[in-house]
């Protein structure tokens, strides 16, 4: 750890100290605000100006998009299309996590099992997830189950593989400690293996979130008569440009929502991990 000497000069100018600090904080808050929203706002304005002047029909102005957003999605379409899509997405992600962690833990703990399955795992993880959609469609027909299975078929791999890696990489001293205190296998799993692997597992979950979203969209563009992806493709086929853009925007919002939710969950689950890194950085 490096030791840095910081010279601290205490300035005591009576009366203006607190006011000065408050102004400094205020400036920082406003500054932060400007930075986070400034560029997007500028771009939006630019887009708005450009779209009114040109007649490019593929890029309607932000106002038109906002209007069609409200028209299209606020209402029946939300319940009929968006919610079921999100529900299947959530189900698929959850199933991927549960299956991935369970299988990954088993495979990671038993070396012979891992060596047995390794070529297969390497091959299956290399298959681009969307390619499995036709296969699953063939095997399961076009049902809701099929759509969830499609999501799992792609989103499983990052969680599974990262869990295997995390479970394998348990610190030898921690392992010996558990052994020396005769910790039961269940306690070992719950208090050592899974927490130790959790940073890797969470990294895998983050990847699987984006895969799940992609698969949800594609499977619906492909093989569905309802859902968010289907709607966007429908709008495109019928040249409803503004509606199509509003769909893309909604999809983007779903993606951002997933990312933010994940960030919150990750910070809570890995509080200890972030704590250690902060201490080490100090």
């Amino acid at each position: 750890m490096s030791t840095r000497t910081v010279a601290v000069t205490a300035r005591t100018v009576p009366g203006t100290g607190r006011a000065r600090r408050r102004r400094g904080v205020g400036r920082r808050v406003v500054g932060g605000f400007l930075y986070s929203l400034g560029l997007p706002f500028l771009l939006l304005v630019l887009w708005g100006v450009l779209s009114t002047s040109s007649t490019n029909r593929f890029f309607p102005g932000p106002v038109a998009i906002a209007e069609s957003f409200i028209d299209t999605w606020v209402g029946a379409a939300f319940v009929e299309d968006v919610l079921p899509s999100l529900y299947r997405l959530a189900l698929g992600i959850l199933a991927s996590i549960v299956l991935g962690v369970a299988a990954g833990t088993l495979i990671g703990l038993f070396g012979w099992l891992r060596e047995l399955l390794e070529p297969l795992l390497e091959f299956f993880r290399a298959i681009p997830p969307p390619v499995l959609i036709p296969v699953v469609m063939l095997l399961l027909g076009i049902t809701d189950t099929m759509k969830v299975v499609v999501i799992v078929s792609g989103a499983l791999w990052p969680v599974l593989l990262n869990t295997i890696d995390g479970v394998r990489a348990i610190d030898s001293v921690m392992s010996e400690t558990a052994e020396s205190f005769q910790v039961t296998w269940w306690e070992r799993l719950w208090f050592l293996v899974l927490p130790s692997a959790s940073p890797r597992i969470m990294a895998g979950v983050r990847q699987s979130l984006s895969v799940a979203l992609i698969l949800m969209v594609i499977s619906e563009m492909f093989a569905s008569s309802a859902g968010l992806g289907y709607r966007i493709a429908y709008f495109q086929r019928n040249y409803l440009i503004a509606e199509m853009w509003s769909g893309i925007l909604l999809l983007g919002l779903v993606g951002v929502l997933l990312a933010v939710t994940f960030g919150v969950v990750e910070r809570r689950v890995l509080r200890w991990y972030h704590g250690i890194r902060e201490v080490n950085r100090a």
Partner: protein
Amino acid sequence: MPDRDVLLQVEHLRKVYESATGDVEAIGDVSFTMDAGELLCVVGPSGCGKTTLLKCLAGLLRPTSGRVEMHGAPVTGPSPAMAVVFQEYGRSLYPWLTVRGNVELPLRHKRLSSAARGKLVADALDAVGLGHAARSHPWQLSGGMQQRVAIARAVAYQPEVLIMDEPFAAVDAQTRADLEDLVRELHTSRNMSIVFVTHDIDESIYLGERVLVLSRSPTWVQEDLTVDLPPGRDQINTRALPRFTQLRTHVYDQIQRAKRGQAVAP
């Protein structure tokens, strides 16, 4: 000295590590006994297999040949009568558990009521002076405090033998002095049997009632020394005693001979 039972018996212990790239003989022929309630220190040159010896004692490793017995019964694996304090406290304590959680973990599978468990944990933390830190996480504490947590964990386990593997090697000198006194205090107040491995000669004499000096690899017991210093020890006065200096010089000399391979096996 009161009549004590023999607690540990090690006879002709030999350990060979077999790896994919070859065989390494960590311990050649080690024999000694340890009485209950003793504080036994083990010193030796680097790489002489001190850690291997400890792991064989604790049942974490099977000897290639020879016997390790406790109360006359062979040691085949870890047992509730032995608790280990590892050198790398940072890797031995679980960062996702609180201090209290770490100390409590080995107790979970012992058939105790949660009240009894809580009392053991609280007592152990108080004994090492960390009663106030129960809800912190290990990485929020200093190195010395973390090692105290590891000691508390071992103490709460209520073992017959405390096995400590160079526990203070990674701690600064001032903290080390405090921790040494803590070990002595635990030894006298709870009559705990302790096997203490160290590379620090002064520490081994200050702490120990007996000091085993190990030879260079292949390891055997080069000397079995009784430390005839008064039982009430403190950092300043004990270390200033002429007898301390005598013992210390003697052990240092032994280790130098061990390093040069000059001592001959009997």
